[in-house]
């Protein structure tokens, strides 16, 4: 199988996340909590030439249809992303990501003194504000490089 074929190979059922900013594909998987242990077939194309973005990443998840609320959180690192739901090799649904009001359990708070970093039985929770996200516990605002804060 040629490299080209691998990159564009279609999936039968699942989700294709397209138009991800180049270099963010692994962060997309991290945000979605997909690390391979679920047994899902995952393929990634990185730095694929794109008219719209120059270079884009593409993430294909075989065997799982991601819900809108699951993918909306991607808008924080991949605002241009499009979500294609695939059934029997056909795109049955195509959506853009929209900014959620709140992001739960995805980001960790950069404030070391925040109670969410103290082994308490809570998920982190951030409110999405004008130009970043804000910790519901300590109010710390993360503005840039959100991807650096993925994973709790």
């Amino acid at each position: 199988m040629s490299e080209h074929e691998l990159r564009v190979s279609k999936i039968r059922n699942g989700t294709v996340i397209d138009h991800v900013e180049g270099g963010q594909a692994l962060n997309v998987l991290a945000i979605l909590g997909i690390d391979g242990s679920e047994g899902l077939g995952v393929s990634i194309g990185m730095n694929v030439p794109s008219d719209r973005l120059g270079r884009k990443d593409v993430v294909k998840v075989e065997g799982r249809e991601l819900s809108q609320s699951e993918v909306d959180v991607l808008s924080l690192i991949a605002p241009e992303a499009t979500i294609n739901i695939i059934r029997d090799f056909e795109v049955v649904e195509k959506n853009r990501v929209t900014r959620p009001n709140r992001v739960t359990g995805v980001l960790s708070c950069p404030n070391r003194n925040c109670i969410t970093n103290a082994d308490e039985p809570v998920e982190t929770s951030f409110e999405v504000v004008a130009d970043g996200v804000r910790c519901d516990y300590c109010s710390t605002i993360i503005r840039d490089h959100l991807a650096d804060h993925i994973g709790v």
Partner: protein
Amino acid sequence: MRQDHLITATQLSRDDIEAVLDRAREVAADPAAYMDRHAGAVLALCFFEPSTRTKMSFDTAAKRIGADTIDMGGVESSSVKKGESLADTVRVIEGYADAIVLRHPSEGAATLAAEFVDVPVVNAGDGAGQHPSQTLLDLHTIREDHGLDDLTIGIMGDLKYGRTVHSLAAALTNFDVRQHFISPESLRLPRSVRFDLHETGAQVREHTDLEEVLPELDVLYVTRIQKERFPDENEYHRVAGEYRIDADTLEDGKEDLTVMHPLPRVDEIAADVDATDHARYFEQAHNGVPVRMALLDTLLGDDEGTEVDR
């Protein structure tokens, strides 16, 4: 106050604040009327870091409305030392008490605690976060001197880590108040607090020199700059020295300027200020009792005792 907890000052509306302060005024005028109001109620004082002052103030307030208090003793001897989570600790204590007062070294601790219990939680300081009951007594003190509208206030010192400052600034946005923040560059208000002030459209300015604004001020709120905030001791002495006031400094202030401080002070307000008409910090500390009586009375509800809103 139509809420079950007091976690941040940001949650307080003008009506909430005025309701507590009105009641505090009533309490101060006739404390005896409140003496048995909450007989049988138990208030848990959960102090995960030492604060004799705030703890004693809540303890006194509780007892003066007839409630009993329990506390966890020092953190050293408690189950916290054994690694118990805060979420577990408050869920256990909830079974013993009708309300919980929480002081904790981590930001967001009170928010978390409130998620796990049904009894009211009062945030008595969470790290460098908030200290809203202090704000209520600060506002009471300001209100008795100047009212809370058409007011110019200067807040000086450690604005970055000062939780009393964060709460006060947020609460003041409910009123027609011009806020001036005076601090070294390294200790300016944190981004999150500036964000909130900006959102409310508050009239806010930041300065590095007190002289720039002192003549305009009705209230000067001074906070301590702590040595730990500076990497080296010389730097601390140089910077902290610029934010120290004495009776001479206040010559340039208005005649009825009120000087406040959440206490304890070290040397940021010289002792010679105590004798001036400006000094209000001891009264401010004393106001903690009637204001916390009013707050606890509100949070514990009117089930027992007499009807207030007749």
